[in-house]
């Protein structure tokens, strides 16, 4: 891996951000932008998530689970169907159920560090290729 890859490990990748807290959402946008990715979004509702997904090609998605009381799972299922890897980024305590429902997904409990998020995303993209 050359130096450029270390600094921009997600070069050219399209990362969709689904998050209803805008301070977190834009921090994620910046975090993935800094890592070389093209951050898409942020989508703050289920509808916006589906819209963004239809409009843009997506390599990987970062999903908050609870979007103002609405579960993100229907969108996550659509992603699984289209073979798009998922990182769940949530403060929910019931994360153990996720592993059975979405076996391929990565889980990043809130609050997560930048490195943790980027590592998980890189891991999923490597596994997919």
């Amino acid at each position, binding site marked *: 891996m050359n130096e450029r890859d270390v600094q921009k490990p997600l070069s050219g990748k399209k990362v969709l951000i689904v998050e209803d807290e805008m301070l977190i959402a834009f921090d994620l946008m910046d975090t993935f932008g800094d890592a070389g990715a093209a951050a898409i979004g942020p989508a703050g509702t289920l509808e916006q998530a589906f819209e963004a997904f239809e409009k843009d090609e997506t390599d990987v998605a970062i999903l908050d689970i609870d979007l103002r009381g609405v579960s993100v799972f229907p969108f996550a299922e659509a992603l699984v169907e289209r073979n798009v890897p998922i990182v769940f980024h949530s403060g929910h305590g019931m994360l153990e159920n996720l592993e059975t429902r979405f076996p391929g997904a990565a889980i990043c409990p809130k*609050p997560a560090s930048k490195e943790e998020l980027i590592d998980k995303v890189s891991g999923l993209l490597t596994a997919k290729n």
Partner: protein
Amino acid sequence: MHYLEKELGAFLGQPEAFAFLDASACDGFWFWDLENPEHEYMSAGFWRALGFDPVEREHLAAEWQNLIFPEDGETALQNFKRHCEDPSFPYDQLVRYKTSDGGTVTVRCRGLAVRENGVPKRMLGSHTIIHDTREIEIDRQLSQMLELSSDAILAYSETDGLLRWNQGAEAMYGIPESEAIGRDPNALTQAEFDVSRDVIRATLDAGKAWTGDVKRKMRSGRVLITSTNIQRVEVSGDRTLLLQIDRDVTERFEAQEKERHLTRELHHRIKNLFSILQGLVRLSFRLARNNVGLADKICARIDVLAKAYALSIDPGHDKAVDMHTLFSQALIPFAQGDRSIKIEGGMQPIPLNDISPLSLIINELATNASKHGALRDKGGHVSVGWQEITDGDEQNAIKFTWSEKNPNPMPAKPPDDAGFGTKLLTLSAMQLGATLNQEWTKNGLVCKLVIPFANNATIRPTTKD
């Protein structure tokens, strides 16, 4: 022999003599066919003493075996066996019977085996109801208290199923005694233990009581949680009974479940809050032109979030907070000296989710005004107001207006160091699904925020119930 004793012997053979003794000498006789032990004659006095109509009872041993307390029945059986083997061992003991009205009586039960060539063939017995001793009375009352307890109190054996099922059990499970007797109590109540039966058995085998919460079902299908206590008691020889007390703790259990749920929810909110703070700090640094005063600015924003959080967890605000309350609290620190802030608007509930972004918007506007706008100099004035925008009968949006009036002329343009403040305004508006419009006039800033309902179902005014 005295002549009268001789005459008495003859008289006792007459039917009226037996009737007299049955009614006046004791509380009933029984005469048992030991060759055909299901057959047993019980006198009329026997049944009357227990409160039953003799006409309705049959001359079968099973008739009283259902009424005697099982543990006492065991004792009597052991004494019976010994008396049959050894005529000098008396058949004489106190036993408790259930009466027809659900009460309990203590009976002194005595008997004599009638032998042929030393082999017991029949047995004559008598009942005497014990009324007089205090100890027995207390025992009787205790038995009645157990019967009337609101806890379910059961006695059963592993082989014969339920022997006792008190009124508390009938009420708790909605199953009458007549249907419970002989059944396995835990199958009857569809018990789900959170430990294996082996663990319970091992505890009982060690001579200890087992206690735990058990999920059960009433006949109606309603689920109950009972705090159950089981212990094994030795009745006689190697025969044992299980005594069980079930207390309905469903309410307590549900309260604990609710608490667990609230705790989970709280953990979720706290983790989310940490994540928001991370974002706030990182974005503040990223957008700051320099680090001067940055720590203070970040702390001020954290303070706003903390106040918004405090408002949202106030027990008086279980679903929504009034806009007026929110704005007054946020703006008090800025209305100092000759600077005035007027808040105008009707009752407008704000969903809890929207408190943080609205608080951040107000704080950014007020902070900017105190640095560059109407709240900087004496005599400045800000008016804040909101109104519903309606389309027909539907309430479609809230239009919020922030209008500054500068005491001194100011340049009609945005301040140079808008940076993070502007970003924060934009992000918070996005979170509300709102449109934000800022206009710098020569009088000062006019900011309009339109928060639509359609974009965000949860912003609809909620009624408190």
